[in-house]
């Protein structure tokens, strides 16, 4: 077992006040926790990387359980669309920094808690410095770059990583980075190339699923601190919310692992954007945009002219002979649409014959934000379509700049 709270004797552990004893009564009468366990929790310092879907329930339950110090790393602000699952934020804190919003909820739940806020993106430059003060790291991030960064920083600093990850209805959890167990790289030596990651819009997530997985992470954190039970070291838990089935698979420590193997080649943090093949974030903003290469106001990207919603509207108003194609998924259409025919980007190659009659027409492709439609435009161009443009910013930009009555999703 990893050493979490330095091997403190009971006398060195922080004392509980009478208020705390009243608050943690149901822990104190549980022999597996008891007075000493509760004091260990009070002494413990846990870092939550991300205060999103996973980080929200994770941090809330750790705060409720009496973990003394919780660190929060997040660069983002609270958006209304977060509240479907990020229960640490609330309607009243929309627009606020997530770390500030989370602190309000956590302190409201447990005023004894010490919250350490890092309003920053976790990077190779700051990760080791941030991690060094904590006993356990809980990875609740949402992109591969940060997953590998958290893993490597955990291995390099010798901190266990309570890992959780979700996609649509499916979740994974494990404990990585302990001395005897495997790390994330033992399971996934390399990230998938960006093009093979399902696009976010095909993603989505059932709001309660991160709740389920985040609480599994919290459970593992508590077990690591109390040194009870069998943590998910060397095991990967697979959660399928639709079938409500849970499976654990054995994970092996890879002796040739570049970080935790016997002859490590990664001995310091690297450039994780490069490692994952994604462009560097140019500003502090949603990483997903960089990851999926949403395109800005560039005139031509990969041979595809980019058209603004204003220019697009002028063409529509002038009744120009253009063909508009929507490449989103069918379930997105009823939320908002521009009345264009729909062929989801994933099935475009197979259905390209349906567009034979417009092969040499001016085609403007749109999706929600402009990323999938760029991909689709490239597919059309490669298939010999002669005049294909991508609508910059997609239907979101249309709602923002042209039709404010249209919902944004």
């Amino acid at each position, binding site marked *: 077992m990893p050493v979490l709270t330095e091997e403190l004797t009971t006398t060195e552990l922080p004392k509980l006040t009478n208020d705390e004893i009243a608050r943690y009564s149901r822990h104190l009468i549980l022999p597996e926790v008891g007075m000493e366990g509760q004091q260990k929790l009070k002494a413990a310092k846990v870092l939550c990387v991300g205060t999103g879907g996973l980080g929200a329930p994770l941090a809330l339950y750790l705060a409720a359980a009496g973990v003394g110090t919780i660190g929060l790393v997040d660069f983002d602000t609270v958006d209304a669309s977060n509240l479907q699952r990020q229960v640490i934020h609330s309607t009243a804190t929309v627009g606020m920094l997530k770390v500030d919003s989370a602190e309000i909820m956590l302190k409201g739940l447990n005023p004894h808690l010490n919250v350490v806020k890092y309003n920053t993106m976790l990077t190779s430059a700051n990760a080791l410095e941030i991690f060094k003060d904590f006993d356990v790291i809980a990875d609740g991030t*949402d992109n591969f770059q940060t997953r590998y960064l958290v893993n490597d920083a955990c291995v390099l600093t010798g901190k266990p990583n309570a890992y959780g990850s979700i*996609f649509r209805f499916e979740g994974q959890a494990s404990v990585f980075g302990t001395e005897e167990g495997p790390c994330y790289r033992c399971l996934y030596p390399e990230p998938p190339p960006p093009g093979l990651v399902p696009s976010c819009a095909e993603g989505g997530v059932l709001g309660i699923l991160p709740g389920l997985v985040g609480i599994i992470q919290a459970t593992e954190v508590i077990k690591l601190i109390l040194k009870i039970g069998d943590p998910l070291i060397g095991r990967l838990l697979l959660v399928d919310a639709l079938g409500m089935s849970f499976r654990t698979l*054995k994970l092996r420590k890879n002796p040739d692992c570049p970080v935790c193997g016997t002859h490590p080649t990664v001995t310091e943090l690297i450039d994780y954007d490069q490692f994952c093949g994604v462009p560097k974030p140019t500003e502090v903003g949603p990483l997903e945009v960089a990851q999926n290469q949403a395109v800005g106001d560039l005139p031509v990207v990969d041979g595809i002219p980019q058209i603004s919603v204003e220019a697009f509207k002028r063409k529509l108003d002038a009744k120009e002979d253009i063909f508009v194609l929507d490449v989103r998924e069918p379930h997105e259409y009823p939320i908002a649409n521009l009345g264009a025919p729909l062929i989801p980007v994933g099935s475009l190659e197979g259905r390209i014959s349906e567009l034979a009659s417009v092969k040499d027409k001016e085609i403007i492709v749109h999706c929600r934000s402009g990323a999938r439609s760029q991909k689709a435009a490239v597919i059309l161009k490669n298939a010999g379509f002669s005049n294909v443009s991508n609508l910059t910013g997609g239907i979101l930009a249309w709602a923002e700049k042209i039709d404010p009555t249209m919902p944004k999703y």
Partner: protein
Amino acid sequence: MKIHIPTPLRSYTGGKETVEVGGATVAATLDQLATSYPELRNHLFTAEGKLRSFVNVYLNDDDVRYLPNKEETVAAENDELTIIPSIAGGCCCNL
């Protein structure tokens, strides 16, 4: 044998969670899977036909990479293959 398809790859199997495919070995079964669902091939194999390093395949409860014969391990009709995807989500992307 039965192959469990993870959520991120189900769009290539017509939404199916499990697929029945025949094959004498793990490799042959996966190849048959990619033949039945051609869009999957690029997600499972490299251009050289090697299983991609970020795709983990379990034969029952064992990681195929750690079996003595790896992908050439003989697979029986009642064995189950599970493909474990790399997923990174922690909240939800906004695209």
